[in-house]
Structure formats: C-alpha cells, structure tokens
C-alpha cells in the first residue's frame, strides 16, 4: 500500500497533476463517497435539519459534495492549494479555507454542530519540517476543534494509521483535549478494505453517536481497578478463607461439615 504521507508534505504532494488525478479517479470518488456516508451515519445527525459542519482536509470537495446533497451547510479547510483550486473549478457550495490543521481550527467557540474529516488526520503524525512537532500539532488541532464545536458536538474522522502507535497517539491527544473518544474499525479482517474511524464527542448530546452497541470511552477515570486474585487472598480473613475452601470442596463433591454460627470461630481458651 502506498502512503503519500511518507513521500512529501501534503501541500507539496498534492500538486496540480496529483490533485487532478485524485479528483477524477472514479475509484477514489467511490471510496471517498462511501466513507463520507459512513461518517455521516456514525455522526447520527437529525436528517430533517440543516447543520453547520466543518470538513477538515476537504481537499477537492469530494466529501463536501455529499454534504451538500444531504442539505448541510459546510466549511472546508485544507492545506493543499492545488486541491482547493480543483474544488473551486468544481464549484462546490461550501466556504474554502487554506489552512493548516496543525496550527489549529480558526473558529470561535461553539461554531459547528459537527465536524468530519476524510483521510486527513494521519498527516498530523508526520513531522514535515524541523519546526513541527507532531505531538504539539495534534494537541493544538484537537483543543481548537473541541472549542469550535458546540457542546454535544461530534466529530467523525476516517484516517489511515500507519501503525498501532499512531492510533494511540491520536486518541490520547483527543482525550487530553477533553473529548470522549473511540475508534471504529470497519472490515477489520480485510487488509485492503479495513477502515479506521475516529469518533469524538464533546460533552453530552441528545443524539449520541450511532455506534451500534459500542460506547465511547469517557475521559473521567474509571473508579477503581478490580483487585487481583492475589490481593484478594492476602486481604481475606480466616473466616472467609474457611468459607471459601468449604465452598470449593462442596463443589468438588466432598462431604463438608455444615456451616453454623461457630464456623471459623476461635475456641474458648481452657486450662
């Protein structure tokens, strides 16, 4: 599988010829449309309403066209000028921004109902210049995205992680920013069709993400870990020990003395 991330930074890789190739390829169009529809399904927006949506890494507006078809109003940002020029030629409906997501989302608090991103956030994990630090860029992106979404706002982003480590890097950065966070993997068995979706939610929403029977991981730490067997054993009293052993023997079919109130008690001291 070829990885454009390893070849050149996005604004250089997606030059005029590459963005034309990308946009006119029916295969790419088909995959992008499918992933956009799947992202919208995960977002679980009210189909009756028009929402204000941010498209991070909108490219030539392939995903934006679907948003327009679904009657949504959107704003797209991308770092590659050629891709945006292609989008302009295709006369997409949304507003276009030439902007680097690693420098933050330049919108004030509570702007968007939701945000999507198709095949973009893996670029954040790359250090393309000596001054860019992936960790800082990820943190900046997620914290400004968190602010730009309204409370209960949701984000679904399809991405191509290079390895397990990148998934951890991305999800932990999202959690630090305050999101409830999860990764949905479609077609996990297939090497070619496997798709990763980062699903984020900023606070509680009336229409939660459509995740089937899965749940997003909360940022609040779990109450306490279950104690290990060894710890439990070390902490139990003599009486509990006897009860446990008796129960075990009973289950193994041995004859065991009946439990009474004297079980496990110390005998009266006698001379």
């Amino acid at each position: 599988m070829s990885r454009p991330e390893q070849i050149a930074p996005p604004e250089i890789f997606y030059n005029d010829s590459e963005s034309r190739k990308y946009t006119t390829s029916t295969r790419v169009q088909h995959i992008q449309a499918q992933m956009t529809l799947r992202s919208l399904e995960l977002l679980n927006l009210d189909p009756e309403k028009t929402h204000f949506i941010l498209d991070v890494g909108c490219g030539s507006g392939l995903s934006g066209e679907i948003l327009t078809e679904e009657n949504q109003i959107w704003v797209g940002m991308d770092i590659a000028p050629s891709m945006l020029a292609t989008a302009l030629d295709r006369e997409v409906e949304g507003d276009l921004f030439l902007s680097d997501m690693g420098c933050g989302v330049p919108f004030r608090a509570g702007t968007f109902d939701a945000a999507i991103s198709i095949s973009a956030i893996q670029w954040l994990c790359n250090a393309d210049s000596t001054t860019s630090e992936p960790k800082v860029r990820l943190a900046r992106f997620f914290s400004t995205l968190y602010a730009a979404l309204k409370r209960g706002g949701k984000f679904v982003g399809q991405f191509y992680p290079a390895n397990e480590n990148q998934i951890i890097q991305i999800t932990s950065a999202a959690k630090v920013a305050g999101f409830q966070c999860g990764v949905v993997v479609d077609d996990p068995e297939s090497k070619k069709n496997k798709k990763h979706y980062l699903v984020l939610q900023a606070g509680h929403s009336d229409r939660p993400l459509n995740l089937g029977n899965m749940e997003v991981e909360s940022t609040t730490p779990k109450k306490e870990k279950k104690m290990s067997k060894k710890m439990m054993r070390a902490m139990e009293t003599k009486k509990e020990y006897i009860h446990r052993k008796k129960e075990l023997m009973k289950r193994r079919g041995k004859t065991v003395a009946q439990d009474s109130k004297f079980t496990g008690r110390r005998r009266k001291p006698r001379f």
Partner: protein
Amino acid sequence: MKFLTTNFVKCAVKSCDASDLSFPLKYEECELQLQEHDFNPEFLISMLPRLNWDAVVQVAADLGNTSLPSTKPEGIENNEQLLKDLHSLLLETQIINGKMTCRHCGHIYYIKDSIANFLLPPHLANS
C-alpha cells in the same frame, strides 16, 4: 466566503486565543458578490442563537452596509420578510476578494478567489 462565516472565523495565531480582539476580524478592500442559495428558514433559526450580533453589525459596517439595527431583531421566527433579508445577507453575500486583519496581532489574512488563506508564517505557527 459567505458572510455567515465571518461571524465565526477568528485569528489563528495561538497568542491571540485569549484575546477578545481576535474576533471579529477587520475586513478591508472587499469585493462582494451575490450568489443565489436555497432559502432555508429552519437553518437560519437554528443559527440565530449562535450569531454574535455585534460582530454582524461591525463586519457589515466594514463592508459598507450601515443600515443594520444595532440590537438583534426579536421575533424573527415568524417574520418571513426579516428571515429573507437575513438569508440574503448571511448566505448569499459572498466575499470574493479582500483582506482581513486581526485587531490583536495585526496579521493580515487575504481572501483570493473566495478562498481565505489562513496559513501562518513559521514564526507565528509555533508560538
């Protein structure tokens, strides 16, 4: 760029995050265009509470329209004429060319062919 978007976009420089001056940006030398868009009253009503009316008035004044009322008009939901006016202002007015200046750091963002350039020079990107 739609007029609606000007009500949300702010300076991208990190050191301007905490400043009130980084929103709204100052709009100068703007070339406007009217682009037709389907009238959608539900969307407008859902966006109303999110609008910062002071910024709407200020940006409209930057663009040469000083006829807006200084307070947010009330009872818009039932006033079709008002909704239509808002629709043509917010969604159909497009800024094609122009420049936006941050009132805090003074950085100038250019709009060219209706694409706003928010790329930051390296010294601002990582500060």
